């Protein structure tokens, strides 16, 4: 009954999306006020209905209703509750339903609160949003129905991939989806602005909070996903340039560029065409990512199901949406008038430079991700990994980081390096000192070397915009910028340090034996069997002592899940302020020894701390923007109220 209810809600939501699209596109062309007035309510109801359908699926998963095919395929009655819940989106159909739900809710929210833009632009925007949603509704209803029943009802479900049975899964995919799909709003705003030729500061200000919001979720999602892969896979790495990781990185790069170019458009009325273009590109990258992941055409641990029919469907959606948007862009770009001009050495100049660098990195990642497909068409099976991605992206990231240190100190319109030379002396000197120190003291690769030296200078430079400011009066968006840029420096330091200084040990140890790894001594005290709700495990007890200090106990596990049968390793982590000890328990060698893999990763946690700081910077900027918008709305309301009273 609940399944049918959910399906009905989904059909109704799709019907409302169709109504929203038709009324929106007719409403603004014919200027039919009656039709136009339907659009906002339709968007709101559509959002609620999509949410209802998603809620129905959650209920089915929580009850483990095995008469529903999706539940039977992906859940199991013995699974802990939190993973039953998380299992809702831990599969293809559920994650696509989450996708349309977020799209619907985002559209509903825009329809409810956005009043700054001219009404025709809003109608065109909401029509655009509905059009994109419709494609995904069709995809769900015709090729990925999450509510399909199963007859006969199986006695037990097939369970969820144990790798995914982790608290990280409960929050990581929805967070990323909020980011991906939040960008659909930027896409729709770009479409709306192109159709009505209203590309200007008002458009940028309306779009900016959405881009910021989506970008925050993407940042947090990527950070959490990276940490999850780091401790759950037990491979000791935190970024593998896996197609799915790239699929989340590409929209992030585009959204980062968009965020900055939207700031230029909002503040200075420049970069109009470029901003619109990025608005289209950012969500396109979300869709490309979805296509790569969901179609299963690329090998990935994240690929749920290899299904050519679905791949073709998403490819068609992709072609219609991106092709349509780019065609519209090509038709209208020439008629978007030139914005304000600026000198090469100016805040705008620096932002343009970094926009181009971000786009170049995006291009590098996109090429590298798609190349295996291209090569396969030519008959060769290849994979592309860190030897390509690391140096190629660094080539553009290094100049970008240098400009990032300088840009925030420059004035809008026109400036000179002479003015800011004095303030940059300290970070530049620190970078030089660090570089000399590293060159003398240690032998490390070029990239980690550059990363460490740059990170130190950048960390100091990122704080410079606060110099001489009254902290209480500094606007929140400035705080946001400073903290986000500092976060980049912190993460960079962590990445470079992890890559340069990690110590790895691989041994077969007997119980009672001690293994040194970096400054640690790790003693294997014992191996005990333990059991969880749907797994059994061998658990090692180990005492780790840092430079001969008091030992701390850690428990790495080798887990054996029985539904579905699979083995995973639960690494044990011990975090200190200056790094992380990472221990994986392997197999018994047959002569009473146990395989152990140990890493000492100096400053590795800074990678994710940096990611969180970047996200926090975004949150502060968003709060600042929303607060000033609210103040403006209240002020306008007061004036209107006063006028009304005087009128009487």
């Amino acid at each position: 009954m609940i399944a049918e209810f959910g399906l009905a809600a989904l059909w109704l939501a799709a019907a409302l999306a169709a109504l929203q699209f038709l009324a929106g596109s007719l409403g603004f062309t014919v200027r039919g006020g009656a039709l136009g007035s339907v659009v906002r309510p339709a968007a709101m109801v559509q959002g609620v209905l999509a949410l209802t359908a998603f809620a129905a699926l959650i209920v089915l998963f929580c009850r483990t209703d095995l008469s529903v095919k999706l539940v039977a395929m992906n859940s199991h009655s013995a699974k802990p509750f939190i993973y039953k819940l998380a299992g809702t989106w831990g599969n293809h159909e559920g994650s696509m339903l989450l996708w349309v739900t977020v799209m619907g809710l985002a559209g509903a929210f825009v329809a409810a609160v956005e009043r700054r833009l001219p009404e025709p632009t809003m109608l065109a925007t909401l029509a655009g949003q509905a059009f994109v949603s419709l494609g995904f509704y069709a995809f769900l209803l015709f090729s990925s129905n999450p509510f399909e029943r199963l007859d006969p009802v199986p006695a037990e479900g097939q369970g969820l991939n144990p790798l995914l049975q982790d608290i990280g899964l409960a929050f990581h995919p929805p967070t990323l989806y909020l980011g991906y799909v939040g960008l659909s709003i930027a896409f729709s705003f770009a479409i709306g602005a192109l159709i009505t030729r209203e590309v200007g500061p008002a458009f940028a200000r309306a779009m900016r909070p959405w881009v910021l919001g989506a970008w925050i979720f993407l940042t947090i999602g990527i950070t959490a996903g990276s940490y999850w892969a780091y401790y759950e896979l037990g491979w000791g790495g935190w970024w593998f340039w896996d197609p799915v990781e790239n699929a989340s990185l590409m929209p992030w790069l585009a959204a980062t560029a968009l965020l900055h170019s939207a700031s230029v458009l909002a503040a200075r009325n420049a970069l109009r065409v470029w901003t619109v273009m990025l608005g289209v590109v950012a969500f396109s990258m979300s869709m490309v990512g979805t296509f790569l992941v969901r179609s299963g055409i690329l090998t990935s641990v994240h690929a749920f199901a290899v299904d050519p029919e679905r791949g073709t469907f998403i490819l068609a959606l992709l072609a219609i949406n991106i092709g349509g948007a780019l065609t519209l862009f090509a038709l209208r770009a020439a008629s978007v008038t030139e914005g304000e001009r600026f000198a090469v050495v100016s805040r705008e100049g620096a932002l343009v430079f970094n926009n181009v660098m971000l786009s170049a990195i995006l291009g590098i990642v996109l090429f590298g991700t798609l190349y295996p497909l291209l090569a396969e068409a030519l008959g060769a099976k290849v994979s592309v990994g860190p030897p390509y991605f690391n140096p190629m992206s660094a080539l553009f990231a290094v100049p970008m980081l240098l400009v990032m240190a300088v840009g925030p100190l420059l004035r809008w319109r026109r400036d000179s390096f002479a003015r800011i030379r004095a303030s940059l002396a300290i970070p530049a000197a620190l970078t030089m000192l660090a570089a000399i120190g590293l060159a003398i003291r240690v032998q490390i690769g070029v990239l980690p070397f550059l990363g460490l030296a740059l990170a130190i200078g950048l960390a100091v430079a990122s704080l410079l915009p606060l110099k001489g400011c009254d902290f209480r009066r500094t606007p929140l968006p400035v705080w946001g910028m400073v903290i986000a840029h500092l976060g980049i420096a912190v993460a960079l330091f962590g990445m470079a340090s992890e890559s340069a200084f990690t110590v790895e040990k691989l041994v077969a140890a007997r119980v009672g034996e001690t293994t040194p790894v970096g400054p640690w001594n790790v003693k294997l005290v014992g191996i005990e069997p333990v059991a969880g709700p749907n797994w059994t495990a061998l658990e090692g007890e180990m005492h780790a002592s840092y430079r001969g200090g008091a030992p701390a106990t850690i428990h790495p596990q080798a887990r054996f899940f029985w539904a579905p049968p699979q083995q995973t390793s639960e690494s044990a982590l011990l975090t200190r302020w200056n790094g992380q000890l990472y221990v994986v328990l392997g197999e018994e060698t047959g002569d009473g020894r146990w395989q152990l893999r140990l890493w000492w990763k100096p400053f590795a946690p800074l990678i994710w701390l940096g990611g969180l700081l970047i996200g926090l910077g975004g949150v502060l900027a968003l709060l600042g923007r929303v607060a000033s918008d609210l103040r403006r709305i209240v002020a306008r309301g007061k004036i209107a109220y006063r006028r009304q009273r005087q009128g009487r």
Partner: protein
Amino acid sequence: MSAVQTQAAGPQGLKAKHQRLVLVVIALAALIGAALLAIWGLRAQASYFYVPGEILAVRPAPDRGVRLGGMVEKGSLRTEPDGVTIGFVVGDGKARVPVRFKGIVPSLFTEGSGVVAEGRLGKDGIFVADNLLAKHDERYVPREMKDMTAAQAKQVVAETQ
């Protein structure tokens, strides 16, 4: 510094259209540069996938990262005295390549099942693997192995039995 100052004085002299054109040209140049670099980097760095027959015919250079896929031959797996280095033979029914790997093997890695080894083929003909990928579960199979199980695995299994 003088160059900067002339540039800084520029916009008054530049027509609006010109600045736009300059921006577009710079952006295009950077992106085309990125594309060319990407193509060059991909040609140099992409790691090719071979089955044993192919890798012995092609003999990739020892400094080149490649992937080798095939079946782990029954009875070929042995562990060295350090307890963490293993040696085994990967075969496809036509050719056999000895492989060495130091590390913790994936849980589904066993004799008689498929494996993809990432690493380099040494001059001595031994493939040194940095990483092993075994079949994860029914729903996640490296695609190269999937092709192989269809075309070659049956034959391999038939021959080993």
